[in-house]
């Protein structure tokens, strides 16, 4: 009963949204090439979504996203650790960090296409570059949050550098790092799709551009829904990982 009451407002508003959309399309007589009604999208959804070609494109986008995310995570954590460990490295890397934060990263996409070609590599690089920043920043933040009292314990027990990294620094930083990874997985999806928009002939981003050029607006909506689903599943997996790894943290129960 409580659950129903909890989810009811969301369900009602979503159903209402689609109803208004449908009614608007029928009443206004708007050209379906510009805005197809939900019923028309629904009618072709499974045909398009389960078409082997669509699935191949989707799996390419997913691969690019995950590879870019993996790269961003590994490099972001490594650089983050070095920055947190050494003030010298921090000062040396700082201009690049600021630059990489303020530069509109999608502007680099054409450059990556020139360098890495029209295949998957250029999209993986785009996804990694866009997703890298939050991992780096949160790793530094997390490592700085090691409590001096905890460090005293490891110091008094004469822990080695590796023991301090594995048993103190990484667990202390983990909540922040995982929050960064949660942002990174979303950004990596965006990076891969934008990369596909601008260069190449595969992936859901390419499909979106191709259907747009063919004025198949209803199919374009199906692709948008598929991208949304991919984004949602990846985000949910990250959230699950976070819950599993930092179940000891207090603010976990709040569902943050």
């Amino acid at each position: 009963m409580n659950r129903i009451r909890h989810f009811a407002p969301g369900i009602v508003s979503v159903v209402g949204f689609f109803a208004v959309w449908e009614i608007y399309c029928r009443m206004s007589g708007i050209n379906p090439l510009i805005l197809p009604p939900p019923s028309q999208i629904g009618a072709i959804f499974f045909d398009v979504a389960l078409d082997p070609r669509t699935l191949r494109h989707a799996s390419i986008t997913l691969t690019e996203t995950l590879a870019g995310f993996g790269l961003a995570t590994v490099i972001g954590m490594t650089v983050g650790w070095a920055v947190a460990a050494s003030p010298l490295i921090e000062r040396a890397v700082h201009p690049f960090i600021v630059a990489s934060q303020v530069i509109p990263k999608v502007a680099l996409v054409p450059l990556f296409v020139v360098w890495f070609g029209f295949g998957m590599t250029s999209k993986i690089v785009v996804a990694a570059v866009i997703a890298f920043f939050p991992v780096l920043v949160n790793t530094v933040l997390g490592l700085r949050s090691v409590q001096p009292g905890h460090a005293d314990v490891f110091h008094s027990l004469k822990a080695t550098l590796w023991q301090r990294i594995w048993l103190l620094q990484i667990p202390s930083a983990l909540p922040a790092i995982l929050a960064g990874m949660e942002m990174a997985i979303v950004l990596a999806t965006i990076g891969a799709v934008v990369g596909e928009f601008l260069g190449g002939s595969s992936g859901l981003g390419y499909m979106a551009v191709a259907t747009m050029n063919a004025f198949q607006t209803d199919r374009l909506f199906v692709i948008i829904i598929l991208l949304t689903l991919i984004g949602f599943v990846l985000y949910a997996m990250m959230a699950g990982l976070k819950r599993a790894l930092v179940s000891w943290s207090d603010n976990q129960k709040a569902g943050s």
Partner: protein
Amino acid sequence: MTVAISCQQVSKTYETRNGPVNALSPCDLEISPGEFVVLLGPSGCGKTTLLRMIGRLHDHTSGSLDLTPVEAGETTTGFVFQQANLMPWMTVEENVALPLRLKKQPKATRMETARDLCSRVGLENFTKSWPRELSGGMQQRVSIARALADDPQLLLMDEPFGALDALTRTRMNSELERLWMASGATVVLVTHSITEAIMLADRIVVMSARPGRIVSETRVPFPRPRGTQIENTPEFQAIAADLRSQLEH
């Protein structure tokens, strides 16, 4: 291997944003192997500072401070901090087993030791809990168990029983005395409680603030193990009155 401590003209000055803070004026303190020394003094007189220097958690500003033979690496130090300092990502028993884990003891044996220590500090039903699920006094007892895990030959304790009720405190005092008698470790314990000091110490070192320094040393003659009944003896009352008057000055 027990540990002797020798402080000669050891002092500490902290450099802060508002200039140097003289936390401890030069002081001399000799502690023999296996001795139980209690540091007693008002808040801010430099007890934690002195204990952290003995534990090599920070450097002394001047003088010489020698630990023999801890430096040779043959012995271990257990440190109970003023805050419990438990790792929130480890369960109670994992926290207690941490010193053994750092020494690469196999998991089965170190967990057995940890559970045994948990029951000695009265937490046998909380071995699988997270630290945040415990009260302040319970957390402090976990940190005591952790300090004892590796069978330390030098035990440095900073107000270990400060967060406990009087009854639990008395129980923990006699448990500590028993453990110390069995291990022969050298102990330096900080407290604000005159009664606790007399119950535990071979020797009580009284400190005073502004500037932090050692003002006197008192030997405690009672035989061991000491029970609460000694509190009613005239000797106990005399020592307590003497300490109280020193602290008031």
